[in-house]
């Protein structure tokens, strides 16, 4: 029991959780509601004070409100992309692995190849160029950076499983193809997929933050962590609070997601299978932005 909720990583995660809760509660009762995009609700570049807990930016906007909005945007869009990549990658991977629709399998495999021949850092840029820098473009660019991992994981694993005795035994008691896939193959692979999803979340946060940081992400005034950091750069020496808070938010969430992924991975003993499949962790995560 203690083991499950203890450990240094877990304590960090719970501390962050608690802090966020306390902060949300405080904001709710103290009436610190400002619009994240409304300029001049306060003076320009005001340091943190009781009225503006995280200060104001160069346009006199409330940094705390902007950070909250940015968190929602960044994490929300990342979540949508990861879920999409997981569903589509998994479905196509199993479809191709089991040759469910024979004439489509070569097409799917070709798409799968495309997803991994582009370096992770180019693909998002190309997609934003194609689809524009709206929420849709963001989601698609994260999605396309991620889905291939799920696809190849599922493809390899579902093909590997076909030779395993317990799958053969499931057929030997009269199981149909679909029954075996749903009740045996899928439960066997689910933990692996979930761990990969958690770790992909880290990549997704990295992609959206990098795009925003480079100025080709969501356009102002919508805040994201990346754009907040980018916009704050000129004022780094005058107004540390503009840079520090979004960076802290970014680092903490990447660490928390990473910790969670590793934890699940170890708990379910699937780390070996996931390892080496998370792309982009070397280029597009927090280190590029900071």
């Amino acid at each position, binding site marked *: 029991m203690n083991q499950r909720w203890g450990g240094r990583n877990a304590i960090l995660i719970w501390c962050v959780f608690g802090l966020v809760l306390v902060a949300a509660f405080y904001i709710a009762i103290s009436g610190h509601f400002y619009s994240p995009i409304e300029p001049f609700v306060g003076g320009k570049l005001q340091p943190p004070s009781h009225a503006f807990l995280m200060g104001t930016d160069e346009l006199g906007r409330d940094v705390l409100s902007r950070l909250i909005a940015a968190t929602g945007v960044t994490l929300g869009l990342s979540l949508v992309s990861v879920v999409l990549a997981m569903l589509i990658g998994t479905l196509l991977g199993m479809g191709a692995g089991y040759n469910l629709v024979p004439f489509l399998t070569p097409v799917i495999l070709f798409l799968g190849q495309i997803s991994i021949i582009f370096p992770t850092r180019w693909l998002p840029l190309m997609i934003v160029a194609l689809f524009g820098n709206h929420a849709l473009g963001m989601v698609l660019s994260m999605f396309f950076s991620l889905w291939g991992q799920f696809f190849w994981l599922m493809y390899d694993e579902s093909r590997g499983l*076909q030779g395993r005795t317990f799958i053969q*035994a499931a057929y*030997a008691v*009269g*199981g149909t193809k679909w029954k075996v896939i749903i009740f*045996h193959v899928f439960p*066997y692979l689910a933990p692996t997929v979930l761990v990969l999803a958690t770790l992909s979340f880290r990549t997704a946060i990295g992609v959206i933050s990098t795009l925003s940081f480079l100025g080709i992400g969501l356009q102002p005034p919508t805040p994201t962590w990346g754009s907040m950091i980018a916009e704050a750069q000129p004022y780094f020496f005058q107004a540390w609070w503009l840079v520090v808070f979004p960076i802290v938010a970014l680092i903490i969430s990447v660490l928390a997601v990473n910790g969670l992924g590793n934890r699940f991975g170890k708990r379910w003993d699937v780390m070996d299978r996931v390892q080496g499949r998370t792309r982009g962790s070397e280029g597009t995560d927090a280190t590029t932005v900071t």
Partner: protein
Amino acid sequence: MQRRLLDVQGLNVSFPSGQETTVAVKDVNLQMQPGETLAIVGESGSGKSTLALSILKLTHKPSSVQALRMMFDGTDLLHLPERGMQKLRGKDISMVFQDPKTAFHPMMPLGKQLLEALPQGRRREKRQRALEMLSRVGLPDAERQMHAYPHTLSGGMLQRVMIAMALLNQPKLLIADEPTTALDVTVQAGIIRLFARLKRQFQMGMLFISHDLGVVAQLADNVAVMRQGQIVEYGSVERILQHPVHPYTRHLLQMAPRLGGTLPMIGGR
């Protein structure tokens, strides 16, 4: 004349891989009467498992299974579509695999896997039947083991669970692919005795695969000796043990240490 339980003629199984093709089973003929135990004996790689799986049409793909005739209890397996095979598997023909530790889904409680072998029906009744069968195969503490995961049981206990699972629907033919090879020697004897008892109680046909003639002597009515995909000698167990014709059979007999002591009938050779 009684209807044959199994009648296989001219069976060939091959695995194509790239340029060359491995022929695992070559021109095999087998006949079994209802209630008969036929043992397939042969060294590792002689094609025993492939032969067994081809009867269930479960050979690993890509593979090609061809035969002149493959009849099971009046059903033509050769031309039976996959749906028909699914109805047969686990009901009329069931299988016990070599290594029980790899034959169960590692993340699913045993009870759930057992019930899967039973046809649609009320859960309570299915559970009751499974529990009954578990106690018939001599699994202690069956109620608790239904909730257990495979890795918590010993190999011998797991093999009993798999045997129970195979017998749930009272099959006409039970295929046992080296059911004791993966087990400790001390456990092996118990499982063999279990097979001997179940065979009498269920009056089912049994295709018993082994590389140990000592085991075969205790169970089989007839023996087919396999080597490099072919059956080199086929006959009643007494005949094979007492008057083996093929040199390979004699070689196998010499390799079975237990035979000399336990079976007085092998005098001549």
